[in-house]
């Protein structure tokens, strides 16, 4: 191993060791990435389910105002936890106008009011409710659900009375056989499609965000603490210093991103059946290109963050620059999700950030289109080189030795 390689390795190793000795770092780079998606995808639905169950068991007060009370409708209400009151009424105005009932619903004296008016074989109805109240919304939903059943009954009855067969009249167009068998995409390709929707997004945002803290700590942090001056007096060159620090940040970020993807796949695997998400069918070429694209993205992002942090005089200043800079990744990442890959114009593969995200999406679908690969590879190498050059320029500056204190 050459002296230079040895020095780069020494710098990177020290950066990683020093960084992980802080327990907060372990939480930030291991615990949070692993738990984030499982918590979001597993606990959140559980919470939603329990809230929904609570609402299902809630007794709601519904008032029915009508000139007639159809039996089918009343029976369907009895199936749920509902307290019904009946008021005989005739209506001259629109049923949707709350008029004297406005305050009663707003004050939650009653959860919802169903108004029915039967005229010329048509049931006219409205539901007076308070959309900002969960009880009122639940009452409205139960009313609508009962009304749908009631409407189906009337429809079926009228079809029968007209001498028609109910089933064929209501459902004259039907899919024959197992719908999933008609899809010619393989399971692996389908898995690739699902993964391509979020892996590039997670990769881009998490790579950028998880590199912020170590980048700042290893540059502006060192500058602020005065450790950089001692380091600059050593025989290692500024480029070796940059490479060592880059390697340190990339290792920490890489571990974080990898763990987050593991957490994400676990959450999806837990939530869905195994045929919802399987192993994407990728060729060796696509896998190699995925690795290359991620590497190029990491070179660019980490070098850029190191450069911006090194330009800063203090940790505070670096944080106020790099924090908002995440928008530069989030917007393109979200934008890329809606770009249609079929017949996509080649120029998209030359735009910074977007090029790598689109490349990942294509490659996860196992689409290796030489023209696209050539464009994103050349443009990414160019952007990564520019970022590395900019970082090297910042590291060569003389004033990085000075501190605010």
């Amino acid at each position: 191993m050459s002296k230079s390689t040895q020095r780069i390795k020494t710098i990177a190793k020290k950066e990683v060791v020093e960084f992980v000795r802080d327990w907060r770092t372990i939480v930030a780079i291991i615990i949070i990435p692993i738990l984030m998606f499982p918590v979001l995808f597993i606990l959140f639905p559980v919470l939603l389910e329990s809230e929904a169950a609570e609402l299902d068991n809630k007794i709601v007060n519904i008032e029915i105002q009508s000139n007639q009370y159809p039996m089918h409708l009343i029976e369907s209400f009895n199936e749920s936890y509902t307290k019904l009151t009946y008021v005989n009424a005739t209506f001259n105005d629109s049923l949707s106008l709350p008029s004297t009932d406005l305050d009663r619903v707003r004050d939650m004296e009653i959860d919802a009011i169903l108004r029915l008016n039967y005229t010329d074989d048509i049931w006219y109805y409205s539901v007076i409710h308070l959309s900002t109240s969960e009880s009122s919304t639940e009452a409205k939903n139960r009313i609508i659900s009962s009304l749908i059943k009631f409407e189906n009954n009337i429809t079926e009855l009228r079809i029968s009375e007209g001498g028609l067969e109910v089933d064929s009249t209501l459902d004259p167009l039907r899919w024959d056989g197992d719908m999933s068998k008609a899809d010619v995409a393989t399971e692996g390709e389908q898995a690739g499609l699902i993964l391509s929707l979020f892996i590039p997004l997670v990769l881009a945002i998490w790579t950028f965000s998880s590199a912020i803290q170590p980048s700042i700590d290893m540059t502006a942090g060192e500058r602020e603490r005065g450790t950089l001056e001692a380091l600059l007096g050593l025989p290692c060159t500024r480029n070796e210093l940059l490479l060592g620090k880059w390697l340190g940040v990339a290792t920490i970020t890489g571990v974080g991103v990898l763990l987050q993807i593991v957490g994400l796949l676990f959450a999806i695997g837990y939530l869905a059946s195994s045929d919802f998400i399987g192993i994407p069918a990728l060729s060796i070429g696509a896998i190699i290109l995925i690795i290359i694209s991620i590497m190029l993205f990491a070179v660019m992002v980490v070098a850029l963050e190191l450069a911006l942090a090194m330009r800063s005089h203090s940790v505070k200043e670096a944080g106020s620059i790099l924090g908002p800079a995440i928008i530069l990744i989030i917007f393109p990442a979200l934008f890329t999700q809606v770009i249609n890959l079929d017949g996509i114009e080649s120029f998209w593969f030359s735009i910074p950030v977007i090029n790598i995200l689109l490349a990942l999406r294509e490659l996860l679908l196992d689409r290796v289109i030489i023209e696209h690969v050539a464009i994103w590879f050349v443009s990414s190498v160019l952007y990564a080189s520019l970022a590395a050059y900019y970082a090297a320029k910042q590291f060569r500056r003389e004033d990085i030795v000075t501190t605010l204190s």
Partner: protein
Amino acid sequence: MAVDNILLKISSVRKNFNEVIALDNVSFDIKSGEVVGLVGSNGAGKTTLLRLMSGVYRPSSGSVTLGDDTPVHLMRDHLGVVPESTGLYSRLTAWENIRYHSRLYGIDDSVSWKRTLKFAQSLDMEENLSRYTKGFSRGMRQKTALLRALAHGPKVLLLDEPTAGLDITSARTVRSLVEQIKLEGGTVVYSTHQLFEAQQVCDRIIIIHNGNVMADGSPKQLINDNGCETLEEAYVMLTQEKARVRFEDSISDRGLTKIWNKLFRPKTPSLQLNQDVMEDE
């Protein structure tokens, strides 16, 4: 290159930071085995000069060379530097700090450990080598930084205010170590603004003021040449011109930051107004 007869040469060095001239036409040689004191007030240019000697800065003009006229930044293996801030990593132990630098010098761990132990005894630091530097006092930090600078066996040791902020005992220990290095034939450049200390430790004193070398010689020579009774008198005589403020912090403000800082500079009452107020009182 053989560096047995190391001679640090500072030849017509000028160092600018944008429009500010930090050092102007500075020239002197440092012979092997000498302990040289750089004395001057805050902002005189001592730290800039030490950074030039350690290769952290490059001269705007002139040269700083080591041995056979090789630019000093190419000979950093032969230098040991203790910056004013000490520059220790708080999440590493004292020994890990020392080992990290030694490895970057390309020195085997066993070699640097032996040298560290040798000097740690003099500094009474053996027990602290395995401790994290986070809770270290200023004196312990300074001693660790010294051990770190010595672990690779440098030919020249550059110390930037090594006793600043130290208690009497620690300062004395540091000075004793410098004397030990001197006895062993080492070369030391020692920056300080304490005349008493410079007189006690150094063979030769270079007085720097506002970026210029005002005097260069042994303490006795400086006193005699200026017709004074004490070194302090000689120093005051040589540095009569008002000392400038420290300038380095302002050099990095550029572009929008510079404009922004100008716009929002806090207002300070004028000196004239202050005098009026004092007279009224």
